[in-house]
């Protein structure tokens, strides 16, 4: 087995040639990573990437999504642009044949991966959506430029207790002639005394009537999808869609548990982050998403069995992705999942969940990475930091990372190094548990 390492793109050129000579078999979207740089993804030149074939597949899958969407359009599929909700509507959309769902708000990362060569933020600026908004404003530029993802046939946006930045920008999209179907996620609140309530995926409970409300909203989404596709979205089809989505989430759950608790860490944080993203939107191909995550998990298992990894130790804090409950009616299950979104409730509840996950994975420090301009980040970061310090006594550092952060890197690095040093200085020789920072 080739020793796991984080390598540069130049190294990957050599590594790819080696793998090809050794008989590497790839899916249709496979190929060397260099071609993505040629297509504009110049950030790759500055990243260190995991050197496994599974990581190659992951990166190729991620960076070929726009091609996949264009192919889906040519094939006559209906493209559904899903805005904001973290993984609910795509499950419904993928339960229908000939429908492909994707998140146009994923355009937030284009200025990062393409290093400002896109003019997306400048276009958003020209429309009055400046850097007082979070990087999701790149989506507005992408709709205007029409040079990235194909314009969806249908836009479905969750609103209410979601995110003002995205809601305001989606409203502007509607003003630019892109009709939006709005559905509501109410602010999740704790059940009142004696009020009937329901357990949500994760650790939260919600009042029964809030779940009923979201279920009714999802019924509206279902009616819309049926109307636009001319096909019924049956309970059986929905249930099958949930089972497929749960396969993705189960894979991710195993991957997280394995990667975050093994020593040494078997996979770098960057690849883990991308794996998390896939579980939300499947990167426009649910079946392939399962295959990509499966390959990643196999690689992780191999490395753990061999006691090797690209890092000595890793303690990256990553938020939990909820499983969708099985054994209940499909729309009820999806309603509970939608309400379990940490952003739908109080940040104090979110802080509790972070405490639970931080303790579970043996984290020794917490990094709160704020999104610049995001209206929910200001007070949320303060509340999470306060709760984690009080409950777990962990050192906390709060950083803010814009889409292109190269000029800030020295300052960010200094703060993160100071955090690591703080952990080291207080760590006793016996306290270095799994996932500890080094």
């Amino acid at each position: 087995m080739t020793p796991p390492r984080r390598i540069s793109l130049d190294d990957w050129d050599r590594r790819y040639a080696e793998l090809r000579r050794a008989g590497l078999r790839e899916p249709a979207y496979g190929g060397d990573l260099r071609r993505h740089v040629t297509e504009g993804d110049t950030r790759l030149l500055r990243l260190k990437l995991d050197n496994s074939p599974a990581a190659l597949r992951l990166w190729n899958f991620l960076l070929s999504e726009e091609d996949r969407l264009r192919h889906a359009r040519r094939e006559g599929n209906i493209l559904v642009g899903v805005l904001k909700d973290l993984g609910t509507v795509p499950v419904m959309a993928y339960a229908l044949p000939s429908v492909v769902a994707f998140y146009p708000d994923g355009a937030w990362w284009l200025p990062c991966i393409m290093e400002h060569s896109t003019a997306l933020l400048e276009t958003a600026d020209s429309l009055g959506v400046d850097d007082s908004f979070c990087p999701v404003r790149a989506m507005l530029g992408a709709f205007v430029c029409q040079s990235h993802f194909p314009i969806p046939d249908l836009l479905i946006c969750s609103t209410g207790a979601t995110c003002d930045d995205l809601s305001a920008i989606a409203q502007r999209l509607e003003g630019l002639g892109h009709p939006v179907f709005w559905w509501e996620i109410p602010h999740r609140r704790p059940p009142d005394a004696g009020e009937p309530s329901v357990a949500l995926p994760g650790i939260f409970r919600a009042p029964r009537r809030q779940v009923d409300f979201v279920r009714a909203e999802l019924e509206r989404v279902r009616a819309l999808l049926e109307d636009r596709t001319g096909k019924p979205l049956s309970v059986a089809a929905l249930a099958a869609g949930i089972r497929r989505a749960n396969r993705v989430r189960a894979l991710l759950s195993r991957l997280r548990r394995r990667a975050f608790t093994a020593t040494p860490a078997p996979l770098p944080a960057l690849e883990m982050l991308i794996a998390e993203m896939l579980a939300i939107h499947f990167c426009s191909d649910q079946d392939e998403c399962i295959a990509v995550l499966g390959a990643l998990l196999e690689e992780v298992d191999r490395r753990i069995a061999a006691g090797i990894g690209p890092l000595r130790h890793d303690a990256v804090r990553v938020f939990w992705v909820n499983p969708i409950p099985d054994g209940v009616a499909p729309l009820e299950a999806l309603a509970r999942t939608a309400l379990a979104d940490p952003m739908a409730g109080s940040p104090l509840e979110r802080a509790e969940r972070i405490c639970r996950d931080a303790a579970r994975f043996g984290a020794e420090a917490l990094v709160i990475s704020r999104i610049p301009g995001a209206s929910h980040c200001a007070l949320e970061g303060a509340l999470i930091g306060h709760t984690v310090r009080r409950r777990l006594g962990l050192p906390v550092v709060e950083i803010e990372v814009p889409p292109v952060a190269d000029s800030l890197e020295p300052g960010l690095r200094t703060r993160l190094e100071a955090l690591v040093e703080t952990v080291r200085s207080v760590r006793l020789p016996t306290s270095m548990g799994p996932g500890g920072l080094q």
Partner: protein
Amino acid sequence: MDSVGYVSPFVPPEWIAAHGLRPAWLTLDGREADLPEGARRGTCPFAAALIVEALSGSAAGALVLATSCDQMRYAAAYLDAHCRVPTFLLNVPSTWQTPQSRRLYREELDRLGGFLAARGGRPPMPERLAATLLRYDEHRAAALRARPAMPAGQWSRTLIALRSDLATLPEVKASPAAGIPLALVGGPQPAGDARLLERVERAGGRIVLDASEGGERTLPAPFDRRRLAADPLDELVRAYFDTIPDAFRRPNTRLYEWLAHHLAARGVRGILFRRYLFCDLWNAELHRLRRQSGLPVLALDLAAGDDRETDRSLGRIEAFLETLTL
């Protein structure tokens, strides 16, 4: 009688008053710098002012906030963690097209009733609720009739009284001076705004339409007497939830319909757009407002309690007025 402070026009003061408590529309004059360091960056000055006011204990005996923007939702959580003043977060759906959104708002008013009862209020019988609603309705109607004769500062104080316990309604003293008709559009006004509005009028402008968060844009529709008699709470829901146009509503087409009608009806020649840094909901509308209204728009950034900002704004307003006189 305990006071219940609020800042959202979707919190009906009649509902609080009908419970025997005193509604108080909060005009905030907080100082952003007083917010704890870790919570300062990215917090809109209005939410910061609210937090500072609540932490000082001077805001009210209890607070009612609404979920209509992120900053208020998170401010409610912040107060939950750091403040002893009981705070109720009213869930106001941003969608308005469906019966379930309307029902949710009504259920939330019921829950608010429970909160008020726990603060010493008495759940109103339908007759008392209807009588309270009528009293507020009549005062609003009288004030709206008197509005054309009021200077902007006085109208602003009248609106505050209409949203509070009606005890401090100012008398109409003088007709406003003639001037260039202006509209005020945007988010909530800070406490110092009345002074700014008076200075706008001295500079040759005249606010003929207050479409800010606390302005007449967000006054509820007049109550229907027949429906009021049948189900006063449902009529309250209709007058507030079904009719108030706002930037956060999805879609917010009714905001532009309301503006188009009133800007034309009042002969508005220029718009003063009031916005807070980090208020995404209003900031995103500026470009669209310019395009849809076809009127000159002057954007005024706000920091609550910042007199220097007020002075700077006045200089810009004077220049704006000069361009409108050309």
